[in-house]
């Protein structure tokens, strides 16, 4: 049975604690063998590269060097971490100038990257490694009646992931369909929510969030289902500020895919951290209970 090195990333230990809780709950329930990567460090997200290019490759490289081998491939829950780690791995594997410096740098701390280590997003592990059939078999609750808007954000399918269309990935749709919920055709599923600029260019970022919330509202989604803690924070915590700016009145719950899948697997909403959102999920939960 394959073992994974679970890399939660900083957000899952703070703003997205409920993502961490639900991810672990789902992984346990699906008998995925994993252990949290020991003493992992911040991946640097998109910020480090803007400050010190080489360090932005070295910081995630340290994590990579601690995964692989019997520790297993790195499974990442946060899109930003996912891209940062993949970016470092790509630079390392390309064997160019940066690759040379990554290797040299890691030597300073007596570490090296295992050539075979891979970086996977938790969503991919569920869809490709565990498999939809398995999840369907283990599902005990049918989420029929719930309308879900799948939202990946940018960094799940971009810059590039083998076999995934950069504009139109389908993994989330395929996974959510297993839950019996109605999965909306969501045009803005890979549009930027502006998260990485929320602290520096707030107003514009809020407008981008507005676009996404607007479509979800238009297609009267009961929830937007996300794969990234930063998108979640943006769309959830800043929803009132979006309303303030646009004079709108959106109240759309922003849930992690692990939370929705958890519900289908029969796990308790509380145990999945549903309710930790700043935008109330009561309406969503009501519908969910009716379905029962």
């Amino acid at each position, binding site marked *: 049975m394959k073992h994974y090195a679970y890399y939660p990333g900083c957000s899952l230990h703070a703003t997205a604690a409920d993502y961490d809780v639900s991810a672990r709950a789902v992984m346990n329930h699906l008998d995925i063998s994993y252990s949290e990567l020991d003493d992992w460090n911040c991946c640097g997200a998109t910020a480090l590269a803007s400050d010190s290019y080489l360090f932005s490759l070295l910081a995630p490289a340290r994590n990579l060097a601690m995964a692989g081998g019997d520790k297993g491939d790195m499974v990442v829950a946060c899109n930003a971490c996912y891209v940062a780690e993949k970016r470092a791995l790509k630079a390392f594997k390309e064997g160019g100038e940066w690759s040379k410096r990554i290797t040299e740098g890691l030597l300073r701390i007596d570490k090296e990257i295992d050539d075979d280590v891979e970086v996977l997003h938790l969503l991919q592990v569920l869809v490709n490694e565990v498999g939809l059939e398995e999840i369907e078999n283990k599902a005990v609750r049918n989420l029929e009646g719930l309308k879900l808007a799948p939202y990946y954000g940018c960094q799940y399918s971009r810059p590039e992931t083998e076999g995934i*269309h950069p*504009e*139109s990935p389908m993994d989330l749709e395929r996974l959510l369909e297993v839950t019996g919920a109605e999965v909306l055709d969501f*045009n*803005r599923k890979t549009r930027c929510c502006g998260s990485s600029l929320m602290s520096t260019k707030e107003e514009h970022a809020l407008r981008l969030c507005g676009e996404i919330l*607007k*479509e979800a509202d*238009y297609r009267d989604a009961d929830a937007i289902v996300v794969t990234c803690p930063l998108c979640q924070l943006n769309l959830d915590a800043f929803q009132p500020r979006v309303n303030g700016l646009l004079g709108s009145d959106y109240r759309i719950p922003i849930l992690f895919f692990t939370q929705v899948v958890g519900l289908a697997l029969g796990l308790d909403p509380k145990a999945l951290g549903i309710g930790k959102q700043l935008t109330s999920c009561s309406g969503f939960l009501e519908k969910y209970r009716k379905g029962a």
Partner: protein
Amino acid sequence: MPANRIGVYVCHCGTNIAGTVDCEAVRDFAAKLPGVVVSRDYKYMCSEPGQEIIKKDIREENLDGVVVASCSPRMHEPTFQKAVAQAGLNSYMMEMANIREQCSWVTEDMDEATEKAKDLVASAVAKVRMNAPLEATYNDITPRALVVGGGVAGIEAALRIADSGYEVVLVEKEASIGGKMAKFDKTFPTLDCAACILTPKMVEVAQHPNIKLMTYSEVEKVDGFVGNFEVTIRQKARDVDLEDCTGCGICSEKCPGKAASEFDEGLSQRGAIYIPFAQAIPNVAVIDRENCLYYNGKAKCQVCAKLCPSDAITFDNEDVLVKETFGAIVVATGFQSFRPEEGNQWGFGKYPDVISGLQFERLTNASGPTDGKVKTSKGEVPKAVAIVHCVGSRDANHAEYCSRICCMASLKFAHLVKEKCKDAEVFEFYIDMRAFGKGYEEFYNRIQEEGVHFIRGKSAEVSCQIEDEGERLVLRGEDTLLGVVREIPVDMVILNTALLPQADAPKVAETFGLQQGEDGFFMELHAKLAPTKTPVDGVFLAGTCQAPRDIPDSVAHAGGAASEAQQLIASGKVKMSPVAAYNEEEKCSGCKICIALCPYDAIEFDEDKGVAVFNQALCKGCGTCVASCPTKAAGIKHFEDEQIFAQIEGVCASS
């Protein structure tokens, strides 16, 4: 006995060779080589005076061997073979040293290039010393030509050859000829109607006494070689009798099985039994078994057969294999249009009003699904239409090359929208406007004057904006001349998609022995001097199977291919290379290894003598048998062991 009065001629090719190779040094080096009596260098050996120098020496110095150190033999071997022959020297006593393509053009350092050139010349001299005069044999040519593909290029080629009095078989895999052009409405830059100029040619094909038309057929196998290709053609079961069917179309009307019309690019429905389009040649129905209720077992049906007034429909026919012999073959298999993949940034396949160029051709065509009215999926006349260039072309994610026709086609679309949708705004997004052909720039100017908005930039995306009145397509892209990003609400988007090689190009290439370039199109023999020839003697290329082309260029290219084919057939005889394997029976141990190896069954075993017998006529001269003969009984003219050994000694002499 080896040639020992050899003349060596080093070509400067202007500065192409002399720029990196010290030709004088090579000349002096060659002069000292064994058997060399004359060694000269000259600016252009292939020029008239250049050839004269060689001829003069052959006569006056009575040379028995010649080495020309110049370009690739693939370029000028025939030229110099002819030259020496004119001076009375056997053309196989001439060898070339490739010191341009494989030396001066790929080496920067003069000393290195010169050293390499010397080795190559030494090798050629060593080889020619071992050469023996050879006489080419001649075969009769079957005075018939095969044309594969019934688009405008294939039609043109077939008519040209047929008009010159030779028999032509035109094979088309679809049920009717006409190809892509038959779908068009107008043609740029003259805007004359495509049907008006193509249909008469299609009819001419059908009625031409020298043309045998085989539609719904494909070439299965090609044997033999230049002058006498033996071709196996598969006539797919059409289930409708070509003679009896009157093309009345009742069958199609009443057919309960429906499918999207290929001819209308999916914009309309057709019966499972159908006539591809109104002007189809032949105007005969065909059954598409996939969608036929009888064939896919959904029902007994056979309604069509019951209704057919001329009893032309019969079921469960089988494909027929026909064998024909041809002297020459013209491949005109055309292109396929790029279809943006699922999830593409323009929403093609997602938003019904984002359509391809070919779909627009059908939309605006009087015989199309809307009788030529340009309407949106909601049936409204569009008020704003965007036309996007380079969709899939000039794009590392798809086809890196320029598809060549899209700029002009886009201008044509813009004009048609303006003409058919009064006061509609047209926005054309282009990266570079390529109006290179005769009358094209003038056409561009004309469309500009019609008030089309030209925006220099590749449109980045089409999205649907949610507005109070519902969803609306918005096209977003940079106007690079203004340096601003523009967002334009539109009712219709026309994507001008790339021209790609046919999906079955690899299979076709294999069947005819052709090669595909990096872009997937079939490779011509020489980009400039032999654009319709291929490395396979007697097989020629016409139209877009070789490269993206517009109609005028395709027709011109097809004409070229046709004249190549005629010229070959008209010559009556085809020269057979004397390069063939033979067997010295007294040395043959009768081990039969060669027999197993020969790809052409050119070797048989003589039980009485217990030796292998080689059939020179069937041998193509690959030499596989020779390389494997344990007793060295097998040999091959012009590529004998001694000759290749001599070349090896030649190139290694300096080491």
